């Protein structure tokens, strides 16, 4: 890894693919030395960010996320947009490894010069995903991409994490045998800016329409997060490339409405603020674990709790007290 942050900064601003890719690797690195350089890079790139449409997409496996992004992204490039796709793939909890197969399902977009796709392993922690993806998004914006799509599998809390870093959060669904609503989590409905029922093609059109009505009913039960925006439910076919223009129109009108009402700025400020608090928490945690005295005492205390010789509450108090004691010096 290169030591000099200007090496990365210049490469990204020149929109050099190789350098963009390497900067993302730098941002994703877990080494603190790398993170130190990354901080400088992000700071220097910050003035060049903020102009892109930030779009989050989630959906259950099988909803056709990749096919949707392939068709939708290709359409955007024909409209002259430069599209960056950040795909988060789950890492195995047992081996730590991952299979990053997104591009096999985005074959055309993958070789399109107007597009950049970067699959990333989720790694161990959700905080990891949040940090990496947020900063990667900024790097892509600085490299001149004006639509950033963050794709996530609908598992765990990853949707809300992604929703907290984008302007528009799109939930992709498919129609099934009438029990659609069981597959959708309430928390997801609350953060959705639109629900799109994919695979409205062939003999599936009527089922998709039915599903659309069911989601509309379900959305009525959720209070919209903005007084100016009621999340619409739409249908599309990524396969036959129908309904995609309408989805893009919806995203654009959302942006227009939210910009003029000032909500977009507010949303981004809130996101920045909660991001700061998240980092504070993360910093505190790191400080805790890296504290020499804690590192020394932790095995002992852990064993005591495991053997039932010490109550967990007492152990926690003692451990936190070590940090406090340290502050008094």
């Amino acid at each position: 890894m290169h030591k000099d942050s200007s090496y990365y900064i210049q490469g990204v601003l020149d929109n050099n693919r190789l350098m963009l890719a390497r900067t993302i690797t730098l941002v994703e690195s877990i080494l603190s030395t790398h993170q130190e350089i990354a901080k400088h890079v992000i700071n220097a790139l910050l003035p060049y960010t903020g102009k892109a449409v930030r779009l989050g997409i989630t959906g259950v496996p099988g909803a056709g996320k990749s096919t949707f992004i392939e068709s939708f992204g290709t359409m955007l490039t024909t409209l002259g947009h430069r599209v960056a796709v950040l795909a988060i793939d789950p890492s195995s909890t047992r081996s730590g490894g991952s299979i990053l197969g997104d591009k096999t399902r985005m074959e055309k977009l993958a070789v399109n010069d107007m597009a950049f796709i970067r699959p990333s392993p989720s790694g161990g922690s959700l905080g990891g995903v949040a940090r990496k993806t947020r900063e990667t998004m900024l790097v892509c914006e600085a490299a001149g991409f004006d639509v950033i799509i963050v794709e996530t599998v609908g598992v765990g809390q990853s949707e809300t994490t992604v929703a907290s870093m984008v302007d528009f959060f799109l939930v992709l669904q498919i129609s099934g045998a009438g029990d659609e609503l069981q597959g959708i989590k309430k928390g997801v409905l609350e953060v959705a800016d639109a629900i799109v029922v994919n695979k409205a093609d062939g003999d599936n059109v009527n089922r998709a329409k039915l599903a659309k009505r069911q989601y509309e009913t379900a959305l009525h039960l959720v209070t919209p997060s903005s007084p100016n925006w009621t999340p619409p439910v739409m249908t599309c076919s990524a396969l036959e490339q129908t309904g995609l223009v309408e989805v893009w129109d919806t995203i654009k009108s959302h942006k227009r409405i939210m910009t003029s009402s000032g909500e977009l700025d507010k949303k981004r400020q809130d996101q920045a603020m909660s991001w700061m608090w998240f980092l504070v928490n993360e910093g505190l945690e790191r400080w805790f674990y890296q504290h020499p005295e804690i590192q020394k005492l932790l095995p002992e205390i852990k064993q005591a709790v495991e053997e039932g010789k010490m109550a967990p509450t007492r152990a926690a108090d003692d451990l936190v007290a070590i940090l406090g004691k340290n502050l008094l010096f």
Partner: protein
Amino acid sequence: MATGYEQWVEMATKQMKGKSPDTLNWKSPEGITVKPMYCEDDLKGLATVGSLPGMAPYTRGPMATMYAGRPWTIRQYAGFSTAKASNEFYRKNLAAGQKGLSVAFSLSTHRGYDSDNPRVAGDIGKAGVAIDSIEDMKILFDGIPLDKMSVSMTMNGAVIPILAMWIATAEEQGVKQEQLEGTIQNDILKEYLTRNTYIYPPEPSMRIVSDIMAYASKNMPKYNTISISGYHIMEAGADSVLQCAFTLADGVEYVRAAIKSGMDIDTFAPRLSFFFGVGMNFFMEIAMLRAARFLWHRLMQQFNPKKAQSSMLRTHVQTSGWSLTEQDPYNNVIRTTIEAMSAVLGGTQSLHTNSFDEAVCLPTELSARIARNTQIIIQEESQICRVADPLGGSYYVEWLTNQIVEGAQKIIDEIEEIGGMAKAIESGMPKMRIEESAARRQARIDQGKDVIVGVNKYRLKDEKMDFDILEVPDSVRLEQIDRINQTKKARDNAKCQACLEAVTKAAAGNGNLLEVAIAAAKARATVGEISDAMEKVFGRFVATTQCVSGAYSSEYSEASSDSAQVIEGIRKRTADFLAKTGRRPRILVTKMGQDGHDRGIKVVASSYADLGFDVDISPMFQTPEEAAKMAIENDVHLVGASSLAAGHKTLVPELIQKLKEKGAGEIMVVAGGVIPPSDYQFLYDAGCKGIYGPGTPITESAGKVMDMLEAQYCK
């Protein structure tokens, strides 16, 4: 209990020094528990026993006298890079006693590309003969009378132009369509499952299948319009139960498509033929063929056929190419012989025996002769042909047959519940099952649980290759391009264009595609042009790649602590790499060129992820340029390029070159698959960092990859 059974248990226990004979039970890859001894009791109440050869449900064979009356057809699959070379090869084989011809096509032809298409520069003449127009087809069958010779063609993707050109060639030879005999593979469903040599999406592809069936039932009554293939499913890693179930389910889907297009079951069902693969699990393969016949008869009853032939499964068999090894390759002669025996004892109608060098290259004249003689010796020296279904009544084989019937029926029921095979393929279920089976097998081999002599046991030290290797020179491509240009120059262009428009119109409407394509073939339209004319309406299909995870290492967790430690050792190294460099080792596995066999990269991807690597998979059919772009954008440490079809000498060096040009020369490139050792130095010189031939345990290649990555990044 059979008389004496208890006494047998007693004796067996004694021989086992007090241990129960149950401890000798073996769990087969299919999940069948095989006991060390079978007797009459095991056959009680089995639906599969008690019939005679030639009688429904045909468990014992479709013919009453089987080989006693007429032996199976020796049908060797072969195709050399050019039509001329193939033609000479065919003529020689026919003189040497071969009865039917079987044509292997170039990968470029399979995918509907002409030889002058830059996408396929590395594929021309690889894996078979390149056909661009009827002119090539005429050379291919020059001096071979098509009214007398049964010709089998392995073609699925570009099936319309190729079949059209063959029919047109026959007509230009003066042969009438109704005289034509032979088989076209035309089994598109399995292409989506395993081999990936499709062109169009499933729906129009199924229509093409129906169009061919409809045309042939009217005009070519002696022609087999489809060969429903389990072979590729097996080669992709399926066990016998999976092969049996998926193949028959494919068959049912075709039958439904034909009936839907308005055909009567008895007009086409007797012309359906099958194609199974047999591997080294001797009795299992025999039982599978018997079970398949029984099940097909049962499955066909739902369509109420009147003719007996409509529910009679007739099959071609090929010995497994996957079971062949690059190491100690003469062992392959023995493997092929054993596999040929199981095909024969299973009652096949025709047989291809592989050449021993096929794990390394395309067959040479010598290796092809040995392969053919393997069959001739069984037919003419061994007296095996004297009795129909000689294993009928064997307690073990009959019991095993029934086990496979039951296992396969369960899977077929599952597929029916999803809504048939086309829907099941869409759901990804069959592909995942096959890949899981393949990953498990790889893990068993890597641990030595499944023995492969010369590979994971009794391995030779300092092995040297001492046989000739057939190479495809690049001049083949240039010659083909030359002939395309000549053909295009000489033809009536306006007439040709009109014919191509008729093809597009038929694709958009209801016209029979084969019929209009024959006219286009006669007008000297090329394979690429006819394919494109249909693509305008149908589009080109893009595969989705799924990958199983956990299957590889789970075979290990059941294993002895020794091999589990190997896995743990590599996992520790990938974790240490993360701690030292800030991320896990990241590799891209790619398959460049038009070869669609993706078992290798799937097994590698899935297993490496299990070992703690981050593994990117590239789309199929990449050019080196596209693969380099992906490697750079995903910022991988290393690219593993898989080659199974002789494209390595152009594609791998080009990939390395492209990476360098784009400033990413530090991304290492390794190669795997079927690469002749004599090419190793060439690839090393081109900058390839490692070559892992067939039979290299995943844990070994992963260890070597880690050695290189650690040396470069963990200094």
